[in-house]
């Protein structure tokens, strides 16, 4: 290892000084001489001197004092100091090392020993230099990383926070282990009232985990806004994640569809701990275990949606949490799910205090100080006004609206009824009508009621009496699924007509089905009888529409929706 060093030597004995300088110069090093400790301190420059040799006993300032001052002056730069000593006293020599000396050389000088020690010092210096370079490179790299993360964080938050988590019905808790975290909570109002909620937990932590959240959130918000159903959105997210994520990454998630017009929710759980439904009628919560593989694992053609439907009474609650809670360890090292969560599962914790209670347990057990996984919890207080009258969805009504005048007819036969949901597409055309987009939620509701009546009762001939118990309610939806899959014939015809006359506008929705109709003369439009789990659809329609007309023995319905445009 060849390296030329700039060496500062201090010795008050001229002959020793000259001898050492001669030995060092002989190896090619540049030597600067000082006559005592003070002189050495004055001549020391941390930017040029790489090694200092100090005699221990010197006038004005001895070697130890000089060494301390030189170390101070060197600051962060590592400059090894070698003590030169005529004494062989072990205590004095060990003192040299104790105050930070790198080594000592005894007099009289032995050139072979000095060479060996110098080589050792050079190795030390080279190593030190490498370390410093690596340290600087690392800190630069780290700065860059933090910068990138902050940029990505802004993008991520902009996407995931275009959401309605501030709705009073929802409360959330979110603790991340990194700047970024692999957990996402998304909530969006549906165009026909109600809400979609998704709590997702991506494999891993940090930026790599967050990356999948972008397409997930994008599809979730976009498709919900356009009126697609949960059972359409979930496979789409799965397909997208499967396409873009590496094989070992996926997203455990729970998707909840809150339907306000028939007081029900649908739950899809893929890989998260049991969702808990706290009904006010029973103490212990009903558990909804994971019945699906997480998102992003299965190929689109293997993917299936196992969904649990339940009915609720306003005030019931649903609690969802990520495995960060379930798998957290308590102080004795036992997983939460085996120790802490028991009273919770048994209904000994009040539903409306569930989140506070969970956070309290996490804090008490020291999990939040040092979480080893991202932790997210979500609690929804179920109600029928969710997404109906929230201030965020009220859009200003334009005062200069162009009139519209168009009509179209859309007929779906058996194959299409089985494979498509026409509503988002029809709604999209209708809301191109100037000014009508402000009423899109009501129109979507009317349209979806008309369509599901035509499909379920008309084409599939399902009897809504079934829905009168909550067991029957899920049976009803299973039967719907089954009959739809086996559907061979039948049709639903949707005709849409929009007319304008001055400031008053009319939307006429005509829906006809291939069924045999029903006894529409004896419908009870009384919504007050809210204990009924069925028949609410027609009453709702009656309220929303200006006029509701049945024809063809009940197999066709015409709904008239009137609205006025602004008068200046």
């Amino acid at each position, binding site marked *: 290892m060849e390296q030329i060093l700039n060496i500062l030597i201090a010795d008050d004995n001229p002959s020793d000084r000259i001898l050492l300088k001669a030995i060092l110069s002989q190896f090619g090093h540049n030597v600067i001489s000082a006559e005592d400790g003070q002189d050495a301190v004055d001549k020391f420059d941390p930017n040029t001197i790489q090694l200092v040799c100090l005699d221990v006993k010197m006038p004005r300032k001895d070697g130890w004092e000089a060494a301390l001052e030189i170390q101070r002056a060197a600051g962060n730069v590592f400059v090894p100091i070698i003590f030169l000593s005529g004494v062989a006293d072990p205590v004095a020599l060990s003192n040299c090392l104790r105050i930070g000396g790198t080594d000592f050389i005894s007099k009289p000088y032995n050139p072979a020993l000095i060479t060996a020690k110098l080589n050792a010092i050079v190795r030390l210096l080279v190593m030190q230099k490498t370390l410093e370079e690596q340290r600087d490179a690392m800190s630069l790299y780290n700065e860059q990383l933090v910068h990138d993360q902050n940029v990505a964080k802004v993008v991520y938050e902009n996407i995931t926070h275009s959401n309605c988590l501030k709705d009073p019905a929802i409360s959330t808790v979110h603790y991340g282990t990194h700047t970024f975290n692999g957990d996402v909570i998304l909530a969006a109002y549906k165009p026909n009232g109600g809400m979609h909620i998704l709590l997702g937990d991506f*494999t891993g932590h940090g930026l790599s985990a967050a990356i999948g959240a972008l397409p997930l959130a994008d599809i979730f918000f976009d498709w919900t806004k356009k009126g697609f159903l949960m059972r359409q959105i979930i496979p789409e997210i799965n397909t997208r994640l499967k396409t873009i994520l590496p*094989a*070992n*990454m996926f997203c*455990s998630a729970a998707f909840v569809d809150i339907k306000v017009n028939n007081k029900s929710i649908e739950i899809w759980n893929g890989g998260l701990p049991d969702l808990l439904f706290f009904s006010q009628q029973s103490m212990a919560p009903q558990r909804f275990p*994971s*019945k699906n593989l997480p998102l992003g694992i299965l190929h689109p053609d293997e993917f299936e949606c196992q969904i649990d439907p339940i009915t609720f009474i306003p005030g019931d609650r649903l609690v969802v949490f990520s*495995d960060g809670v379930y798998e957290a360890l308590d102080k004795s090292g036992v997983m939460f799910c085996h120790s802490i969560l028991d009273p919770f599962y048994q209904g000994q914790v009040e539903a409306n205090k569930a989140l506070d209670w969970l956070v309290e347990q996490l804090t008490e057990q020291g999990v939040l100080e040092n979480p080893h996984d991202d932790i997210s919890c979500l609690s929804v207080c179920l109600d029928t006004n969710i997404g109906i009258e929230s201030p965020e969805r009220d859009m200003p009504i334009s005062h200069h609206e162009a009139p519209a005048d168009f009509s179209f007819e859309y007929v779906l036969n058996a194959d299409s009824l089985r494979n498509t949901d026409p509503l988002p597409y029809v709604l999209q055309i209708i809301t191109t009508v100037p000014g009508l987009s402000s009423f899109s939620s009501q129109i979507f509701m009317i349209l979806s009621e008309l369509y599901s009546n035509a499909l379920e009762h008309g084409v599939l001939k399902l009897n809504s009496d079934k829905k009168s118990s909550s067991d029957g309610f899920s049976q009803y939806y299973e039967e719907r699924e089954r009959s739809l899959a086996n559907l061979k014939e039948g049709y639903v015809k949707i005709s849409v007509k929009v007319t304008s006359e001055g400031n008053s506008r009319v939307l006429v929705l005509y829906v006809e089905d291939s069924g045999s109709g029903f006894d529409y003369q004896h419908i009870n439009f009384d919504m007050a009888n809210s204990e009924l789990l069925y028949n609410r659809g027609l009453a709702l329609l009656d309220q929303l529409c200006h006029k509701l007309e049945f024809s063809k023995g009940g197999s066709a319905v015409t709904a008239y929706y009137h609205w006025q445009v602004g008068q200046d």
Partner: protein
Amino acid sequence: MVESSFNDKTKCLTIVINGRFDYSCHKSFKEAFVSVKKASAYEIDFSNVSYLDSSALGMLLLLRDHAGGEKASVILKKPNGAVLDILKIANFHRLFDIQE
């Protein structure tokens, strides 16, 4: 810690994992199955696994992919209660043969 052994007769690669099965095993786990080209069946011995996290689930998916996806024969043996719980929540019994 990951150990593996390959049985030439049965063409079965056995991978034994000890302690925590998490990201720290990533490299050794991947090496264990990538290095054996002739394996047609895989057995993962979980009897000494105390805990597994979602990145471990991801590694199992990598192995399944490597072993032929749909057609793969991967047996997960003797997971303890907590580990089995996590595998079941993720519905991995639909992708792997789990032997308790």
